[in-house]
């Protein structure tokens, strides 16, 4: 009972996060490329209900930020200037799912005030907006790569496990070979061969797709294991006895057994591929400015001065931890459910 309840919470969380990311334009107060050049590395804005005089406001408000004259590069809050928060305000135009154009944002403060829930980066861009927009690209990329890995894994692992013998040997040794090669050069080559006007988002999706395609070896090994045990089952042996074809056996009897493994692999691989982009950025293959992605938001922490000076730059990383934990617990739940079904 309690577990079920917890699982419900996890699913709810995932739905909320994914909805916020899908409708990023609406939930984000600013565009991902909107620069506030007077406010680089501004700390997260505090929301207030009580003003200096101790008076309560129904509408939350923020204080203005001003340069700290004693401490260059730092800010102080100007307690005399308040900006009230409004909901459903007009702002930077955006498109939802690339189709529905709109300018309405869930919240914002009156001009010239600014509200940065997660602070700003070196160009004074709102990190919160960038986090939401970045999720669109990263989730898509992660899903795409995971799906590619697993589908190649199903084909290769299925064939290797089902036929066994030299086919199995060949495919599995091929997998080892795949693991050992310096794939980075393929990525360099793919990136360099792309024409100039391919958008940054497409470049990233393509590169991550290549990473996913290369990553088939491990899921293939797992699926092969399942197939190996499944093909010895009595039902399969019986069906074979009735003269069923290999393709039919694979499709109807053997691969459905691998369903659980496939699902858990996908939920495990999505976070991995999202994080793989951090490494890509490290090697100069990440998404280009001004497009945000989770990988590039994390990658900005690589600069020592960011890491050691601006704590709010850690927020994207901290937010990803519960999200990924939710993914993993879905994977666990699927596994457990399958086990109980099998029993």
């Amino acid at each position: 009972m309690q577990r079920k309840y917890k699982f419900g919470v996890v699913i709810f969380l995932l739905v909320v996060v994914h909805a916020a990311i899908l409708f990023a334009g609406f939930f984000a107060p600013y565009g991902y490329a909107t620069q506030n050049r007077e406010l680089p590395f501004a700390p997260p804005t505090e929301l207030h209900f009580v003003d200096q005089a101790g008076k309560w406001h129904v509408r939350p408000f923020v204080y203005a930020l001003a340069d700290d004259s004693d401490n260059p590069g730092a800010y102080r809050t100007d307690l005399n200037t308040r900006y009230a928060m409004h909901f459903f305000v007009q702002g930077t135009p955006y498109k939802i799912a690339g189709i529905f154009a709109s300018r309405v944002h869930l919240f914002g403060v009156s001009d010239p005030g600014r509200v940065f829930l997660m602070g700003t980066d070196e160009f004074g861009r709102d990190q919160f907006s960038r986090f939401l927009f970045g999720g669109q690209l990263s989730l898509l990329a992660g899903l795409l790569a995971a799906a590619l890995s697993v589908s190649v894994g199903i084909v290769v692992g299925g064939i290797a496990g089902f036929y066994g013998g030299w086919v199995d040997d060949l495919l599995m040794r091929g997998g080892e070979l795949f693991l050992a090669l310096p794939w980075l050069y393929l990525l360099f080559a793919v990136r360099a061969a792309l024409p100039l006007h391919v958008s940054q988002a497409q470049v990233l999706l393509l590169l991550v797709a290549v990473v996913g395609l290369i990553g088939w070896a491990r899921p293939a090994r797992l699926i092969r294991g399942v197939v190996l045990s499944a093909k010895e089952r009595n039902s399969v042996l019986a069906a074979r006895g009735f003269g069923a074809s290999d393709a039919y056996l694979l499709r109807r009897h053997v691969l459905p057994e691998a369903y659980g493994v496939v699902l858990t692999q996908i939920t495990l691989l999505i976070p991995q591929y999202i994080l793989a982009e951090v490494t890509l950025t490290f090697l100069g293959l990440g998404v280009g400015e001004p497009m945000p992605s989770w990988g590039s938001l994390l990658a900005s922490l690589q600069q020592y001065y960011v890491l050691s000076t601006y704590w709010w730059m850690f927020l994207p990383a901290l937010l990803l931890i519960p999200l990924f934990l939710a993914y993993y617990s879905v994977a666990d739940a699927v596994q457990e459910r399958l086990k109980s079904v099998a029993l």
Partner: protein
Amino acid sequence: MKYLGRRLIHAALLLIGVSFFSFALLQWAPGDFFDELQLNPRISARTVEALRVEYGLNQSLPVRYEHWLRSVAHGDLGFSLAYNSAVGPIIAVRARNTLVLTGAATLMAWLLGIPLGIWTATSGRGWANRILGVTTSTLLTIPDLLLFLCLLLLAVRTGWFPAGGMFSPSAEAAAFWPRAKDVFAHLFLPAFGLAVVSLPVLIRHVRSAMVDVLASPFLRAARGHGIPRMRVLFRYALPVAANPLISLFGFSVATMLSASLIAEVILSWPGLGPLLIEATLARDVYVVVATVLLSAVFLVFGNLLADLLLVAVDPRIRME
């Protein structure tokens, strides 16, 4: 014996395949080592072209591959364009440093992972157990890069650990023991980081293997006979649960040369990592191929080791 022979032939084929495809991949990537010179206003294009010819970069892939094979036969493993000398000696020292690091990390991970895994398998759903579970899955979600950066920040801010490198600048002339102590101080942080990275997976595997074994009748019987708990766990249960763990161990041996790349770069460990990244970006082709080949050797060796250990430990498995 016949089995071993077959595996060795497989391994040789694999290594040839790896080296050849590495060459092919390198051929695809844009630019070559001498491109950087071309942007230098003080060096003429003619000189750059002459250098390309001198080092055979203008030759076709099969010709270059053949040259390289010959140099492998001599033990040189090719010629580094950047270092202007044979690759073998360049990577030998660095491979040793990498192995020192990954060896320590593997040791640390297994020394922590087995007891922790057994403990989570045997203690019920207590608080401590849950905290460990949450911690390990959280560790899974933190990118390696970030983890090592945070460790570095810790070292710099607290001054408890040296901020990277393998030796202190002053420790070179010291005697063996102070020197070993110095290396250990430098080793701890990166090795700890690597161990932490591999711990979650290790604990999970130990736990699931132990849970399966503990449920089996023969152990219930053993406990029923009044054999002490620790003895049951380590003397009877662990060897039976070892089967999947040995494969995992083989895997960690297999990745010994490649697993520490990011840690080495961030913590300035003088291993293969920084060399490989630099060579990759600079297109110092033979250094890259040699490094890849060396890690492929470890991959093959690790898998072979795991299989042989399995045969030795588990009497049910026979060599085909």
